[in-house]
């Protein structure tokens, strides 16, 4: 299964606004995507509740996984989002 491992770039962690941006993007992906912390169970990336419970902090490595048509592109896009400091972007 295609995977991407990336360190959380947002200084607040995968939490609040960065988490909301990520969850929205994961929900728009053409295939279901999971996210896991090292040694943890994968949880659905399109679930805010699961992402909040994951509690990934700035610098924590997480692994994204997906399978099917468009998985590679979706993973690239989501991995880029995670590596970006989303809290530093101007508010939309």
């Amino acid at each position, binding site marked *: 299964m295609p995977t991407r491992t990336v360190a959380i770039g947002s200084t607040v962690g995968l939490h609040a606004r960065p988490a*909301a941006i990520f969850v929205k993007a994961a929900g728009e992906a053409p295939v279901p995507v999971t996210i896991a912390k090292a040694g943890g169970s994968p*949880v*659905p990336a*399109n*679930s*805010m*509740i*699961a992402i*909040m*419970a994951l*509690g990934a902090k700035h610098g924590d490595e997480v692994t994204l996984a997906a399978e099917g048509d468009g998985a590679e592109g979706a993973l690239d896009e989501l991995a880029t989002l995670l590596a970006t400091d989303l809290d530093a972007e101007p508010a939309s």
Partner: protein
Amino acid sequence: MTVVHGIGVSAGIAFGPVVRVGAAVRPPDDEAPAADAEERIRTAFDAVADDLDARAARAGDPAAAILSATAMLARDPSPIDGAIARAASGAGPATAIDGATREFMDQFAALGGYFAERAADLRDVGDRAIALVLGAPLPGVPPLTQECILVAHDLAPAETATLDRAQVLGPALDLGRQIGVADAALLVAQRRFVGALGSVAFKAVPERLRRNHGQSPGRFAGNRVGSACARTDRGAAAG
């Protein structure tokens, strides 16, 4: 006469008849499994989310943001999929929703702070979905016809945000838990009611805590929640 001691979280004094907030419906014991459980669970969560979104559209800030965030929890696949999985292994639909939302509430409560407060939103979503799936009246604030003191065990932030300020002299809350500086129910209560004549919100000290600790409400306030109250008071005064 019944006297309940509390801790004021906003300035003022109010007199009025008491209106109690409707208690949440619990799933029946030994609830039978349903063949159409998945569809009923999805429909219930959808209806809860649509209702919250509709209320958000009518509300101003900060209520709209809180209602939208709660609607997002109601659309979250984790509790819905969890409830469907529980129903598939033989739980009744209401029991399945209750179990799935509690599972995530427990995770949030264990994380503490901000997350523990989100647990209250999730409980609100779960309680509404349970009532819908059972065809029972929705929990929460009944239609208000006169000025009153609203008495509740707790108010979900979404409920506090949309209270009819003209009708509610003040909410009296027995949260039964330690209140935090960023406690959403209290913060919204303060924003809504500060400036209104006789605006008050109380955290009633649970009788069993006073009994167990042998403390007066004042000492209890000083020891456990005094600093939190002082900080939220300053926030209200500045805003």
